[in-house]
């Protein structure tokens, strides 16, 4: 418990550094004022708008103002929507979580059996097939896979809807798109963790007692091999969130990723900052969760 609070405290400096990076990046990418004004705008219009947005202040003044407000959950107003940025982002959160969780389920259901199979049948043709498939799955870019799935399963075979959000059917293709890369990664990790355990003494003992292989694998090895799996799952948070950006754009999935991409394109700074912050928080919490479950599941790690 004490350790948990200690880790939680470490989150604060990390968020602070992220805020600084986001602020600087947003500021070097260009001036939003030019994008907001029409082709007939005068210099005077420009100056007025810069002043209204507080962009005429020195950078450090702007940053501290931004930080002061951000701490209170106020990231400023999205200029495209004339509304506070954070609520808009939070409104989109459920759709993203829905996609992320489903993709995780897809990845888990795929990778646990495949990883184990691959480890048990080590160096057979099946193993080569699975590890080869994992390399392929990792290498396929999400947007390409998404567009291919749409072409084959929606346009040609008309099984699933092309895009949007609503029914369970809408969820299938995006979840497969996002889940494949993660499944590939997890399969490889599970395989190596299983191999490590299969080489340990107690498994040799079990085998020498003449137990059936299937019992050895399922009863003795699997249990211990699954310990890291939980951690591996939690560690996928960042891959998952990164993947939602592309996947949501391809499938017009109304989540945070799509919002962030549009906000970057239109230089909607307040929205970008709010979205990046929420995403960073998720990644940090995911990693913290991984850390904690690992300690909980493997008592050999000391709490200090």
């Amino acid at each position, binding site marked *: 418990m004490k350790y948990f609070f200690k880790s939680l405290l470490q989150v604060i400096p990390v968020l602070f550094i992220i805020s600084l990076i986001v602020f600087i990046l947003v500021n070097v990418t260009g001036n939003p004022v030019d994008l907001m004004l029409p082709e007939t705008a005068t210099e005077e219009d420009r100056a007025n708008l810069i002043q209204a947005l507080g962009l005429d202040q020195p950078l450090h003044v702007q940053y501290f103002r931004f930080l002061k407000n951000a701490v209170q959950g106020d990231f400023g107003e999205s200029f495209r929507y004339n509304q506070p940025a954070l609520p808009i982002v939070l409104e989109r959160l459920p759709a993203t979580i829905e996609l992320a969780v489903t993709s995780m389920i897809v990845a888990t259901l795929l990778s646990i059996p495949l990883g184990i199979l691959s480890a048990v049948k080590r160096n057979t043709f099946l193993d080569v097939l699975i590890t080869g498939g994992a390399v392929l799955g990792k290498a396929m870019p999400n947007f390409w896979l998404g567009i291919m799935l749409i072409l084959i399963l929606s346009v040609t075979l008309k099984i699933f809807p092309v895009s949007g959000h609503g029914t369970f059917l809408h969820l299938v293709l995006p979840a497969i798109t996002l889940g494949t890369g993660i499944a590939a990664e997890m399969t490889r990790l599970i395989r190596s963790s299983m191999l490590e355990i299969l080489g340990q003494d107690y498994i040799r003992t079990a085998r020498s007692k003449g137990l059936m292989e299937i019992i050895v694998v399922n009863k003795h090895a699997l249990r211990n091999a699954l310990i890291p799996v939980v951690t591996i799952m939690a560690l996928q948070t960042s891959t998952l969130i990164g993947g939602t950006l592309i996947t949501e754009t391809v499938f*017009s999935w109304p989540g945070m990723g799509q*919002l962030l991409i549009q906000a970057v394109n239109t230089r909607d700074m307040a929205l970008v900052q709010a979205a990046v912050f929420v995403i960073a928080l998720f990644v940090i919490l995911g990693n913290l969760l991984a850390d904690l479950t690992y300690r909980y599941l493997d008592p050999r790690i000391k709490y200090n």
Partner: protein
Amino acid sequence: MKRFGMMVVTMVLAAALTLTGCNSGGSGAVGNEKVLTIARGADMVSFDVHNHNNTSTEAIHVNMFNYLIKLDENQEPQPDLAESWEQKNDTTWEFKLKENVKFHNGDPFTAEDVKFSLERVAKDQSLLEHTSYKQIKEVKVIDDHTVEIITHNPDPVLLNRLSRLGSSMLPSKYIEEEGWDQFLKQPVGTGPYQFEEWIRDDRVVLKKYDDYFGEKPKWNQVVFRAIPEEATRVGELMTGGVDIVENTPPSDIERINGNEGTHVQEAPTQRVMMLVVRMSEGNVTADPKVREAIELAIDNQAITDNILQGAGTPTRTRVTPGTFGANPKLYDKYEYDPKKAKQLLKEAGFEKGLKLTLSATNGRYLKDKEIAEMIAAMLSEVGIQVKLDMLEWSKYNEKYQGKKFDELYMIGYGNSMFDGGYAFERLSPEVAKGETDYNNAEVEKLLEQAMENMDEKEREQQYQKVQELVAADRPHIYLHQVKGIYGVNDRINFNPRLDELIIADDIELK
């Protein structure tokens, strides 16, 4: 240990099921024939009708709001919320308003609303559409259904102004009582469709308004979806998920036409692609012979045929048919003569060739990158070495606003005013300074006269003359008028409009 793992899995599953369980309704036109769905690349920007200059946003507004006047397909003014109008003197117009018109919230539409709507945009300088309405001095309420609109100077374009984006009629009582923020959340108009919901960057949903003063709305619901990914948009059309897709890539035309139940429709738009030329001293393009050589080196037909697959018409003017003052002698024409171009460069003293920079956007206009590359290749054929400066939109825009381009940049301009004067605003000396540095006293005089000329015939001739002078001076080298490419479901009749608006009730089931 095992129990813990199981617990995690169960929890995740439970969470997923609850999440997928709470859903908004399904979508798409499949199975519901009274829903019209339109897919486009980007979301609308705002419900503030005065504070955007975005045609695809207006395409939604036009179903929810009315103007005083609407232009028919021949660009002739027809009554919309105004019953009739007459000009009292050079600067005063009287409008009789339709009676028994109700806003979606039940408020009656009166002269007060006209005053409120037009004076807001005419007086508030911070609004994006202000420049197109600052000519209006005041709106006088004569009685509940009569107003006088008074302009600062004689304004021959007033009727056009009152039938385009920025002149939608707003509910003054509702806005004064509830405030702007409430209006932006829950917009109210007089149009055939009323606001249902707006999910940012996803969709805007409108539903029919039964008390509409005009013909009964044809659809129960009209849905405008934002689908940024082109392949996904086309996929939605081919599976019947949407009825109309905008901005279809030319490479998909054959696929859509070959697919069962969908076809492609092309229609001219007001957008003209052009090269803007810096004529200032110290640039190679200051020499008229060099500018002529550039035009002669470009084979416009090759661009529209090969890159756009026919979705463009070569032009030597920005004022295209359907816009007041169009000059037919310059439309669907181009000059291509590489031999003469070389000759001209030789005369200008560039026998060994010359270097210049062409800046262009990437992904903003139809096939812009490919067009710029092709132009660079064509220019090099006659000995002009082009440094191609491809910029993403915000960088480009920064240079554009700061007037920091070199010899040439490529841009596409529309004309939401349907008037020749609008097409030459950027060539007036104060705007052109530092951009083209164009300065032709004759052009300037003609434009000034035309701006306040109430004699329609004469005014038309003035604009036609301006176009001829500009075509000869070449501060802009026009390339082609862009056609809109729409993918359409066979179940509907849809004729794309010149102004690119999507008017749901003009679209019907077959």
